[in-house]
């Protein structure tokens, strides 16, 4: 089980959380103006990163708040946790793989 550092509650077991997929996916500002391909990219297509990945988690059985995590998908090491809506912290993404 991962130990995930909730920014509000502190480190908790993974079983208390639910996963929300890739973080920082911005909804197109003018949905009616984008092509079907661009819309499909927004709705369906996600990165499959080997290395540091920015992802969303929700502490559903704790404070019930959404937040973001930087996790290495190779080692499962969690490098940072930060509030939803905040910018990702500066990390050396290349050497973390």
């Amino acid at each position, binding site marked *: 089980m991962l130990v995930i550092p909730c920014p509000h509650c502190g480190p908790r*077991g993974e*079983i208390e959380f639910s996963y929300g997929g890739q973080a920082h996916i911005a909804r197109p500002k003018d949905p009616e103006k984008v092509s079907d391909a661009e819309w499909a990219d927004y709705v369906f297509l996600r990165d499959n990163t080997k290395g540091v990945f920015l992802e969303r988690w929700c502490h559903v059985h*704790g*404070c019930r708040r959404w937040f973001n995590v930087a996790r290495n998908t190779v080692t499962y090491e969690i490098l940072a946790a930060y509030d939803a809506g905040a910018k990702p912290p500066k990390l050396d993404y290349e050497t973390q793989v």
Partner: protein
Amino acid sequence: MIESYLRQSPLAHLALAAHGPGSGKPAGVHMAERPFPGLVNLRGPGDNANFHGAFKAAAGYDLPVEAGATAGSANTTALWLGPGEWLILDARGGPKSGPRIAESLRAALAGISAAVTDISESRACIRISGAKARAVLQKGCPLDFHPRHFAQGQCAQSVLARAAILLHMTPDETAADGPAFDVYVARSFAEYTWRWLEDAAREFGVARGER
């Protein structure tokens, strides 16, 4: 609202008061239902001094702002649930305590952007105490129950055997009796949670009732 003479606590159908006291051997764990706690969910702007001031003027104490912290008076206790969210409770309040707490908070917070919701009927409260209470909870909950990590007066929301719970380590037990926890669980999970706890505690000896 339900007629008060029809109202039953979530575990009333188990007729716990009619059960025998246990094997007679010293029990490592004591279990009891605490019926009809008054529970009011409070949400408000945690960064607003007026909000905190208005609460303190009504309740007589400051809302806790640290994760897992609690605060209280002789009348109510406030449990930190998340940023800007608290549970104001009166564990022994009786069926009318929820509406009473909610009314006084609504009056105190008039004009402030806050939500006060009486949720008393939605939860069951199970008191588990005794020398082995920590060991029993540890079987089904990912929190660390070592006294260094979970101390008197602390609260946490987590899962117990996959059921969502709110745990409150109450400050009103003496060290000699062992720790005492109030487990709040959704009413529909009350019997499941009771039976799971009872089974997990069996190896230590269970006595029904509060010590």
